[in-house]
């Protein structure tokens, strides 16, 4: 098994190495994300300040802030943007080249993204995790962390990673094929943001919007792991949602491979 992974691991390492090349760049990257999270948290404080009750849709202010931090951390753990790879590679003719290589293109991109992802983890998630751990011990955050849910969180993240990558890969191939642009990417990001639970917990949505959210895979990437860690699921909900994640992961892996092989066949016929 390791033998198969070894060539791909080289791609991961390469991405990781590039990430550390510029120091200030990284520092400000962290800062920029911190600002974004900061704005969000402050807005929530203000919102709760104007509310007559201490909880909204089942979240106290403390829980809402934890939610935002955790979902942000989850987002950085599962960040996979294969569209850039696809676009760049196509531009450089690398797609055609990689068809000749023995490694399978999709997995090559996956491991490359994993490398990037790891950089993002160290940079963003580490500080976040430190902040969170301190809060867990010191603050009255109202979240019931347990060892069991934490372990399940890790599993959930792994599944979420797969879902994130493969759903983005499918989307990327669509864009790549229709030759659409930057606009599509923004659209995708906006949709994901809304329906993943990162904009606002899905429990705030009216019924019909909630239904749409549950049909799309994005909730499985962000909301599910977050709620697992925050121990907000009943045990049956927990296993059902993990099951849904698994189903999405498997389905998308198969789907992505299928679509990609169709495209490759088309490319071989038309010559790119």
């Amino acid at each position, binding site marked *: 098994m390791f033998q198969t992974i070894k060539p791909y691991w080289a791609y991961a390492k390469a991405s990781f*190495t590039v990430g*550390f*090349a510029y*120091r200030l760049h990284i520092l400000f990257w962290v800062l920029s994300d911190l600002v974004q999270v900061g704005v969000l948290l402050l807005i929530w404080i203000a919102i709760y300040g104007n509310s007559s009750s201490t909880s909204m849709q089942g979240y106290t202010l403390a829980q809402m802030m934890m939610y935002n931090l955790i979902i942000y951390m989850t987002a950085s753990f599962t960040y996979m943007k294969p569209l850039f790879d696809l676009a760049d590679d196509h531009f450089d003719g690398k797609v055609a080249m990689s068809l000749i290589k023995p490694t399978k293109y999709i997995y090559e991109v996956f491991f490359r993204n994993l490398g990037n992802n790891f950089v993002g983890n160290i940079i963003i998630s580490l500080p976040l995790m430190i902040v969170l751990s301190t809060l867990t011990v010191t603050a009255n955050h109202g979240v019931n962390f347990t060892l069991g849910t934490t372990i399940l969180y890790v599993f959930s993240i792994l599944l979420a990673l797969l879902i994130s990558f493969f759903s983005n890969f499918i989307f990327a191939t669509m864009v790549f094929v229709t030759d659409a642009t930057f606009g599509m990417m923004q659209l995708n990001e906006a949709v994901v943001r809304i329906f993943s639970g990162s904009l606002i917990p899905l429990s705030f949505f009216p019924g019909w919007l909630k239904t749409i959210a549950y049909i799309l895979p994005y909730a499985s990437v962000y909301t599910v792991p977050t709620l697992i860690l925050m121990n907000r699921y009943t045990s049956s909900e927990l296993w059902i949602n993990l099951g849904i994640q698994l189903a999405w992961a498997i389905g998308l892996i198969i789907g992505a491979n299928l679509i990609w092989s169709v495209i490759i066949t088309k490319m071989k016929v038309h010559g790119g």
Partner: protein
Amino acid sequence: MIEAKHISKSFVKYEKEKGLIGMIKGFVNAKKVIKKAVDDVSFTIQEGEVIGYIGANGAGKSTTIKMLTGILTPTSGELLVDGIIPYKDRVRNARNIGVVFGQRTQLWWDLPLVESFSILKEIYQVSDEDYKARMEMFEDVLQLSEFIKSPVRTLSLGQRMRADIAASLLHNPKVLYLDEPTIGLDVNAKLKMRQAIKTMNKTFKTTVILTTHDLDDIEELCNRILIIDNGKIIYDGALSDIKTRYGSDTKVSFVLKEAWTDFVDLAHLMEVDPKDIIVKVDEDKLEIGFDKRILSVAHVAQVIMKNYEVTDLKIMETDIESIVSRIYNEGKVNVSND
């Protein structure tokens, strides 16, 4: 027209070690290294001259050109182009010059070529009559009408270079700088480029500075050569001089059937003075360098093939690299003799 007095340019580079540890180290503390790209360069160029500026890659050509065009400020020294200090009086200098960088276009990528020209006309304030006359000349020499309506990004390399050269000459600059203008071009495109340069130089006494690796460019266009090596000018003289002195350098290399162990006096065999040939041996490869006017290729080949079994033979005429190393070595020799 152009006066360079003791120009120098140094750059500071930060060196980082290789590998993961090196990278993290570089995070905290990187080593400073100072590189002198141009070292005490001086020359004077008259109006209407066509100068070939030669040197190996990294020798300092581009850096010099950048200083002349005002993009880079010299670390020390004085520079005057048509009485203007390029980096101080950037706008005035810019009106006087035209630039063609071989690798990058000066034109706007997405705009149709004709629009680029129209905008340049505004920027350089070219009068209507001048514009018309110039465009006609370009049409004559460069045949731009074939693709003048296309966006620059759709042009082939040859077309783009023709367009770039037209763009650089539109405002009749006093000085034209060309950085590797014929690189990657086919014969036809090269001819057109040279023709355009020649016409402008003849009609308007445009001073031209051309950096190139192409000997034919130099043959066709230049009357004077400057050679730069490691930041220093090692040769500044007429083209004819160089041709007389080094143009007949020839090398013939033989691949022998067996490694050459005979230290026979080849000079004696060929009936020439030992200082007239340069012999290099590498196991079964034998290389003989000589002056074509003293020895003929045929004679050298005959002698070797008569005395040894030869399986392959290659004749190499002189090229820029060897002229440069030849001149550089001579410079070294002169210095050590002092």
